[in-house]
């Protein structure tokens, strides 16, 4: 059945001339996912356990395809407006999507590594797509260098595992680790830390986050949106799979490291975001802070071994985060069309020019802040829930850290809405009349809007997905 998905993806790679094909294709690829999900009975295991299709992977595949679809829509006007290579642009994004899709199903070291790299390599190119722009070049070089480093770290970690156990498939590795009482050995811990460091770059957690603001700022906005949503999610999916399939017996040490990383990531992301004047950098730091939130349940799950709640919380967070964050980037995109300044403090009173963008800004940014009834509250809620589920001290402390950070986050998330709705227009800033919003962007806006609001008012729908994924994942 994976072949169905791949079949639909592969031909598209050669028909890259027109954006429409990619867009329709990615929408079309969504269908088999839905059918598979609807007819789902048991996990499909292929290639001797290397490639597994279960509800977890189906849901995340669906998420990746939908996110890519929205990214395409965001890109249409961008790619057309400047004379960039169109075909390659879509091809690279699709390759990245393929990588992400492979990661969700991969259950052995090689497949997973190929998936991770297939997902992230195209992004090195795409983040430098604005060829004439210095910032874009700088960001992409940074991203490339650190990305290569992270790939090698992951590879080191994987090869250590292989060296110790001689197996590639995760379940075999885990069995051998347990049988030979190696699960808590220094070797296993070292490989876990190497892998964590490698994936840490992809998901931009502290201290591996330094590339993110520069790359985000330099990259074309749709690419940035994709980076902060899909690439990050790919990293998290890999981390979730590795943590719960290999390192679930690795003892408290790893979990405690993760708890600290998660808490520090929230603080660093949020406190840095407070000082930004460039909205894209603000979102970059915000996405670092959000990564801390997504990591938190996994970290605590490593200590409590309650992976069911942990994975449930992380997956639910990832799904809701994806749509509100794409929405947030859309808002920046829309607002920037109306004004010639990258300093958001110059954007006073912009909402009066584009009320729709103004309303989007309120919805998406306050959703990121976690204010009910917008989707973000439920994402934060399930995270808190999983942190407190066993009443264990690390979870409790991390929940308190999270609560404090939710308040800090509000301060800067509210800032854009404040500026565009409440401040008076600056007179010395050039405004460009651009009141018509292109329809692809409107589609992105309304799709994300509906998903954000529905997930806030009827969180049951999304949490069922998260729950389904976590239950089947553990079987």
């Amino acid at each position, binding site marked *: 059945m994976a072949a169905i998905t791949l079949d639909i993806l592969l031909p598209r790679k050669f028909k890259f001339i027109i954006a429409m094909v990619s867009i329709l294709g990615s929408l079309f690829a969504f269908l088999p996912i839905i059918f598979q999900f609807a007819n789902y009975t048991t996990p499909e295991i292929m290639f001797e356990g290397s490639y597994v299709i279960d509800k977890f992977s189906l849901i995340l595949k669906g998420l990746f395809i939908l996110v890519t679809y929205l990214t395409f829509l965001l890109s249409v006007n961008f790619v057309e407006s400047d004379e960039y290579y169109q075909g390659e642009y879509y091809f690279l994004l699709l390759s990245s999507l393929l990588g992400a899709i492979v990661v969700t199903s991969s259950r052995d070291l090689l497949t997973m590594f190929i998936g991770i790299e297939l997902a992230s390599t195209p992004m090195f190119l795409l983040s430098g797509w604005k060829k004439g722009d210095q910032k874009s070049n700088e960001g992409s070089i940074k991203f490339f260098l650190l990305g290569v480093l992270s790939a090698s770290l992951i590879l080191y970690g994987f090869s250590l595992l292989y060296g110790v156990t001689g197996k590639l498939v995760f379940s075999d590795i885990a069995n051998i680790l347990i049988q030979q009482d190696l699960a808590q050995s220094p070797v296993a811990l070292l490989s876990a830390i190497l892998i964590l460091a490698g994936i840490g770059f992809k998901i931009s957690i502290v201290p591996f986050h330094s590339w993110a603001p520069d790359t985000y700022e330099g990259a074309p906005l749709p690419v940035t949106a994709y980076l902060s949503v899909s690439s990050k999610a790919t990293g998290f999916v890999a981390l979730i799979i590795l943590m719960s399939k290999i390192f679930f017996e690795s003892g408290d040490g790893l979990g405690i490291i993760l708890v600290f990383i998660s808490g520090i990531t929230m603080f660093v992301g949020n406190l840095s975001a407070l000082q930004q004047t460039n909205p894209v950098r603000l979102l970059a730091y915000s996405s670092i802070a959000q990564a801390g939130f997504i990591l938190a349940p996994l970290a605590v799950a490593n200590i409590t071994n309650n992976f069911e709640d942990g994975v*449930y919380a992380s997956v639910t967070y990832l799904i809701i985060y994806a749509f509100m964050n794409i929405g947030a980037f859309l808002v920046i995109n829309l607002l920037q069309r109306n004004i010639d300044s990258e300093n958001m403090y110059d954007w006073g009173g912009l909402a009066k020019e584009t009320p729709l963008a103004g309303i989007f800004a*309120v919805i998406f940014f*306050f959703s990121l802040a976690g*204010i*009910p*009834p917008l989707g973000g*509250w*439920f994402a934060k*809620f*399930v995270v*808190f*829930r999983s942190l*407190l*589920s066993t*009443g264990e001290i690390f979870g409790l402390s991390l*929940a*308190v850290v999270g*609560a*404090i950070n*939710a*308040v800090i986050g*509000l*301060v800067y998330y*509210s800032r854009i809405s*404040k500026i565009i*709705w*409440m*401040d008076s227009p600056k007179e010395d800033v050039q405004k460009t009349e651009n009141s018509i919003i292109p329809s692809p962007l409107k589609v992105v806006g309304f799709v994300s809007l509906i998903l954000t609001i529905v997930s806030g008012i*009827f*969180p*049951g729908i999304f*949490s*069922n997905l*998260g*729950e389904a994924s976590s239950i089947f994942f553990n079987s």
Partner: protein
Amino acid sequence: MESGLGLTVVVFLPLVSAIFIFLIPKKQEMIIKLVTLGSALLTFAVSLIVALQFDFNNAGDLQLGTKVSWISSINSNYEIGIDGISLPLLLLSTFISVLAIIYSFEHLPEPKNAKGMMSLILILETGMNGTFVALDLILFFVFFELVLLPMYFMIGIWGDKTVRSVSGLKNDIETRLYASIKFFVFTLFGSAFMLLGFLGLYFRGNRTFSIPELIELGSSGAFTGTFATLVFAVLFLGFAVKVPMWPLHTWLPDAHTAAPTVGSVLLAAILLKLGSYGFVRIALPILPEQAVAWAPAIAVLSAIGIIYGSLACLAQTDLKRLIAFSSVGHMGFVMLGISSLTSIGINAAMIGMVAHGIITGLLFFVSGSMAHTYHTRDMERLGGNMKLLPKTGAILAFTAMASLGLPGLAGFWGEFMALLGAYNPLPGLNITIFRSSMVAGAIGTVLTAGYLLWMLQRVNLGEPKEEWLDKELHDADNYELVAWIPLVILTVLIGVFPKLIFGATNDAVIALVSKAFGG
């Protein structure tokens, strides 16, 4: 199980209308206003029908509600219902909303934008009504937070534009911007921790968020020890910020001063009650043991709040700020009543909440309107209001009298009975602390009378200052009078027949107290 249709309509009709209003073009201002008013009136009418259906003989039971699965994976339900405690507050909320909308017909501050203001009021109303009927902790939390966004924008967009300096900030900032974010951050700070407390109850209480079920568990002693102390602490934080109790009150004077008139009215009349209602509905019955342990502290903080609020009032030159600080004092009486943990004290808190809603709401209406007419709230410059604006002046005088607790008007019962409750708290509570708090409260009533009379003397009496003589000043117009007179009538009615409130609350409060504290 009943359908809960009436309550559902009361909660969601305003929200649906707000979405509908988004679709009306901005230019059709009159249609927008009429739709809003119609929706609010209809909501009020439905809430009256609900009140008629309400069985007052069993006011202690939760009635007219329903329970439908909402978020099944965490076992959170759409569980609503009302008893004698929530009914008066629900009616107050739907009623004040109508008046606020009538007032807004002609009195929108800059930038006008009726569409924005009207839809915000309606969203706010959904949040307020929802909080009073929610019987599920998560549902409660969502409604409790739902009020934040509309109020934030109401203060931030329509608020006071004067520039002021704030200690700790480098640059001067417009009052509205400072006040709106301060309000938001303070409340969110409290409620973020409150949510952790709710989750704690959920995990210890058989994974349920249902308030009635948790009350059953709580009164049978399921929550004890450090866990209960921590949970009560975070719930206290969440609710006390909202009330607001001293020393968490500092957002209130800023928010009130900066908010547009309608915002101040809704804030004072309803939003503050969400906090004290939370204590009565959630904190006390679910964690009775902790309530007893914390009661003396709450009493002392309330007493400080009363004295502090009154003294702060004496120092104010800004009319709206004075009323804002008076709210701190009045809510201190409400909390003093609650802290006594007796049926007299909690009844006092209930009538105190309603009375404060009506009286302070009216005070903010009048002072907002005066600020609009005079373009200043500085009491040094005002004077002779009675001669300049006789109708407004008369209502201001009446309301100030009601606010200082004149017997025969609504404000009297809350203060008097709260002191009575504090004199004789639940057996086992430290009597010295409560009697001292009562004395402090009594001193507070004197101070309250002092500052309100002084305010009247400065603003209402005397000869008008010269700067006003040659100006044309508009006395209250019809919209204002339609919004104000009902509140005046209610003040008298509740003052003379307190049974209007007690009839509903008494049974419920006695049921609560006997279940939680056996007294």
